[in-house]
C-alpha cells in the first residue's frame, strides 16, 4: 500500500482548508471502495488522505429541502436503495444503487463518491442524469449547485474546482409525473462493473430522457421532446431514428476487457428499447 498521512477533520471548513493547502497532493476518502484499491495498486499516490466521514455536514442523510431531495455526501448505496422517498419518487436511482457491487460494497460506497470518481460505468450516473440532479460543492469561493450533465468530463475527471468538496447530491422534485427505470448488462451480478448501464424516464408531457454509461468516456444524456418515443403507437421507424440520434454519442473503447464495442452498441439498443417500454408502463401505472 502506498503510504500517506491521514487527516480526519470534523468541520467542513477544516477539510476545505486542507484541500486548498495540499491541492492535487490530497485525496478525499468517503467509502474508500475506489480510493483504497488505487492506493494499493499505486494509481493514486496522494501525500494526504482526508477522511470526510466525521464531518457533521457529511453525515449520512436523505432529507427534503427547498423542492429537492438532498442526499448527503456520506450516504451509502444500501441506505439509498432502501429509502422510501427515493423508491417512491426516484425509483430508477434506487434500482441503480441496489446493483452497485455487492452487499459489502454497497455498505461502504457513497453516491457522492460514485459521482466524483466519474467512472463512465458508474451505475447511478444515468439515473441522476435523467432526474436532473445537481452536485452541491462547497469550496473557498462558496457553494455551487452544479447540474450533473456539466459535472462529468471523462473517466476520473470532473468540473470540480481546486479546494471544492461535494457535500450532497440534490434532485429536484419532478414537476410532472414520470415513469423511469434503470437497467444494465453485466457479466456477473454482485461483482462486475456494467458493460452497459442505462436509465430511461418518460414524463406526462411526453418527454423522454435517456441516459447511458459504460459506452464512452463519460455518461451521456439524450432528450426526446417530440413525444414520439413516449407514444406507444408511434411507428417503429420513427422511434428507431430518434434512438439512433440519442445513441450517437456512444463510443465504447476497443481496449476494454469487459465487452467488445459491437456487443455494447448492440446491447445499448436492446436495453434502450426495453427500458423505454418499462418506463411507459410505469408512467401509466402512476
Amino acid at each position, binding site marked *: *500500500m*502506498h*503510504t*500517506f*498521512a*491521514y*487527516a*480526519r*477533520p*470534523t*468541520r467542513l471548513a*477544516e*477539510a476545505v482548508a*486542507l484541500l486548498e493547502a495540499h491541492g492535487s497532493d490530497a485525496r478525499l*476518502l468517503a467509502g*474508500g*471502495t475506489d480510493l*483504497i*484499491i488505487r*492506493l*494499493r495498486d499505486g494509481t493514486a499516490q496522494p501525500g*494526504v*488522505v482526508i*477522511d470526510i*466521514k466525521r464531518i457533521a455536514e457529511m453525515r449520512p442523510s436523505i432529507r427534503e429541502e427547498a423542492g429537492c431531495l438532498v442526499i448527503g455526501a456520506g450516504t451509502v448505496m*444500501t441506505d439509498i436503495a432502501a429509502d422510501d422517498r427515493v423508491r417512491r419518487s426516484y425509483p430508477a436511482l434506487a434500482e441503480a444503487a441496489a446493483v452497485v*457491487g*455487492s*452487499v*459489502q*460494497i454497497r*455498505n*461502504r460506497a457513497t453516491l457522492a463518491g460514485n459521482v466524483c470518481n466519474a467512472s463512465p460505468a458508474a451505475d447511478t450516473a444515468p439515473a441522476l442524469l435523467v432526474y436532473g440532479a445537481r452536485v452541491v460543492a462547497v469550496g473557498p469561493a462558496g457553494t455551487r449547485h452544479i447540474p450533473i450533465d456539466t459535472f462529468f468530463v471523462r473517466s476520473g475527471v470532473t468540473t470540480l474546482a481546486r479546494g471544492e468538496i461535494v457535500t450532497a447530491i440534490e434532485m429536484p422534485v419532478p414537476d410532472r409525473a414520470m415513469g423511469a427505470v434503470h437497467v444494465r448488462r453485466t457479466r456477473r*451480478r*454482485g*461483482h462486475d462493473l456494467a458493460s452497459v448501464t442505462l436509465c430511461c424516464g418518460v414524463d406526462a408531457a411526453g418527454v423522454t430522457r435517456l441516459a447511458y454509461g459504460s459506452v464512452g468516456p463519460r455518461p451521456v444524456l439524450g432528450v426526446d421532446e417530440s413525444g414520439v418515443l413516449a407514444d406507444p403507437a408511434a411507428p417503429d421507424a420513427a422511434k428507431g431514428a430518434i434512438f439512433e440520434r440519442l445513441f450517437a454519442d456512444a463510443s465504447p473503447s476497443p481496449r476494454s476487457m469487459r465487452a467488445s464495442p459491437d456487443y455494447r452498441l448492440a446491447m445499448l439498443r436492446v436495453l434502450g428499447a426495453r427500458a423505454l417500454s418499462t418506463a411507459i408502463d410505469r408512467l401509466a401505472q402512476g
Partner: protein
Amino acid sequence: MSEPARVFPIELTVNGHRRAVEVAVHHTLLDVLRDDLGLTGAKECCLVGECGACTVVLDGRTVDSCLVLAVEADGTEITTVEGLAVDRDLSPLQQAFLDTGAVQCGFCIPGQLLSAHVLLADNPHPSVPEIQEGLAGNLCRCGCYQQITEAVLAATDRAHR
C-alpha cells in the same frame, strides 16, 4: 484533530472485547485484525473488494475489510468469524455449513458465514434469490454455492424449529 498523521491511536470493540491499538494509517482493518490482533479468520485474497474472503461485520453491516483503513474503524464494533461461536460451541449457522457439506477448502467460509449471519439478522426467512443476492459478494472457488445456499436455508429452519 485534523493535522495529517501517519500513525493513529484507535479504539474498537472486536467480538465484544474492547481493543486499543496504534495503527499505521495506511494499514487496512484486515491488516490490523490479522497482524496486530491475531484474528486470522478474515482472509486476505483479492484485495479489490470482489471476493469477500475478508468480510467482517462493522457496526452491524458487512464490509470488505481489505477496503477499510483500520483508522476508519476507530470507535466501531467489529465481529469476525471468531465471534460467531459461543463458549466454543458452533453457532447454528456454522453447524449448518458443516452438515450440508458447504465447507470444502474452507478459505471463503469465514466471509460466507458473516454475510449469511447479517442476512439472517436482517431477514430471518430469506428466499433462495435473497440468499444468492445477500451472498453475491462472496466467491467460493470450490463452487459450493448450492450447499452454501442449503446451509443458510437449514439454519433458518433450525432457528425457528
